[in-house]
């Protein structure tokens, strides 16, 4: 979810920007390191940012809290390219969306990166990798990764909104009010994102398993037919 331009006061906008910068720097350093040996990685990151842009610009209004919900697309980016590069991808997609569609904003860019890019990517990636470590089916792991990435993003957005606009209200009750307000759209959207993420992984596995092997998402030979 994107926090709209102007919704966060300046001090909170700067704080979230400050939190996002180290992750962006880390992602950039990692990308630079990979790019030294793999010339195709930069164009790939640019293309994935465009995919995240397309997936995450389908807003669904949230009736009470006053914002929009949508699939994030960061789960799949994190699973395929790793969470640190996914933060960079999210940053690029968010900036283009803010500029083109007034979806999100320049001042809320940092907050949106923290929720979608950092929390969404890392949580989705961790769940996916943990489940894969315990030999859980690839599709189920991707499904859970997608769901958790989405729900974690919205939990973080609720924290950002509650801290930024609570005014004289107490943080905890206001946070729960926002969180509850998200539930009607976010529970089904999270599940939808899970299906989309697992569907994408399944499609890649069926049509181009070499991509998943090259990106270290799965192990095995390219000719393997059964789901690992």
């Amino acid at each position, binding site marked *: 979810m994107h926090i709209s331009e102007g919704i966060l006061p300046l001090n909170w906008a700067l704080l979230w920007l400050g939190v996002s910068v180290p992750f962006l720097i880390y992602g950039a350093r990692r990308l630079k390191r990979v790019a030294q040996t793999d010339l195709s990685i930069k164009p790939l990151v640019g*293309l994935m940012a465009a995919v995240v842009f397309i997936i995450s610009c389908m807003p669904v209004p949230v009736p009470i809290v006053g914002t929009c919900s949508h699939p994030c697309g960061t789960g799949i980016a994190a699973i395929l390219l790793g969470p640190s590069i996914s933060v960079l991808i999210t940053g690029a997609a968010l900036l283009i969306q803010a500029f083109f569609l007034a979806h999100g904003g320049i001042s809320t860019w940092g907050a949106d990166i923290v929720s979608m890019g950092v929390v969404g990517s890392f949580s989705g990636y961790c769940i996916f990798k943990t489940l894969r470590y315990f030999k859980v089916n690839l599709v189920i792991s991707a499904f859970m990764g997608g769901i958790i990435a989405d729900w974690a993003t919205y939990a973080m957005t609720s924290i950002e909104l509650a801290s930024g606009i609570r005014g004289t209200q107490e943080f905890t009750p206001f946070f729960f009010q926002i969180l509850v307000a998200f539930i009607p759209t976010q529970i089904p959207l999270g599940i939808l994102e899970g299906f989309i993420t697992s569907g994408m992984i399944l499609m890649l596995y069926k049509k181009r398993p070499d991509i998943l092997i090259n990106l270290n998402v799965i192990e095995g030979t390219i000719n393997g037919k059964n789901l690992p």
Partner: protein
Amino acid sequence: MEKIYPSFRERNIFSKRDARVVILTLFSLNLLVLSCKGFVLPMTLFVACSVLYGFLKISIKRVFIRFAEPLMIAGTLVLLKFIFAGEEGLRQGLLVSSRIFAAASLIIFLSFTVSFIDFIATLAWLRVPKLFIEILLLSYRSLFILFEEAAVIYQAQTNRLGYSSLRRGVSSFSSLAGLLVIKVFEHNSRLTTALIQRGYDGEFSIPEKKWNFHFSDILFAGFILGAAGWLWKV
């Protein structure tokens, strides 16, 4: 899709100004709005931007599409604050809403007057790391290709009743997203090959921009910021 095509940027007197001045002025105004404790500056900027949209002959429909999300956010915020915090909450909600209106107006105005390439050139001028600018440029260029691919796949799925029920819709959308990722890898493979054949060594060149700088732009920006600063105190 029409919303993001470059044609959205209207040719107007502001788009011919130095993009750096326009962007920095709007950004400074945005900072003033975000740090403002009153209604006067945000509402003045909102009205001024609305008048400018009319003056620049930007269609109301186009502006409304951009405003739909901030408008809904502002409306529901007022309601939420009023329900949970009474009269004081209503005042806070209106204050935040006025900030949303003003800040959203400024960013929408920016998107109507400055092209994305000028925006990128300004980021480069501001010494934003080159790697990030490269990714922005690559994403921007890929967007239109991927949108077209997605539109073709979507049309093909719709023709075969791919979205006739929720279950089929989810399945079709997953396939669409998966195919889009496959297309990304195919494009990437072709793009990288083409780049390497043209001497690509891992670095992209950022297009150099010849700025159309006039001192009068600075004076005008200074006047606007001075007036906004005065209103900020009110």
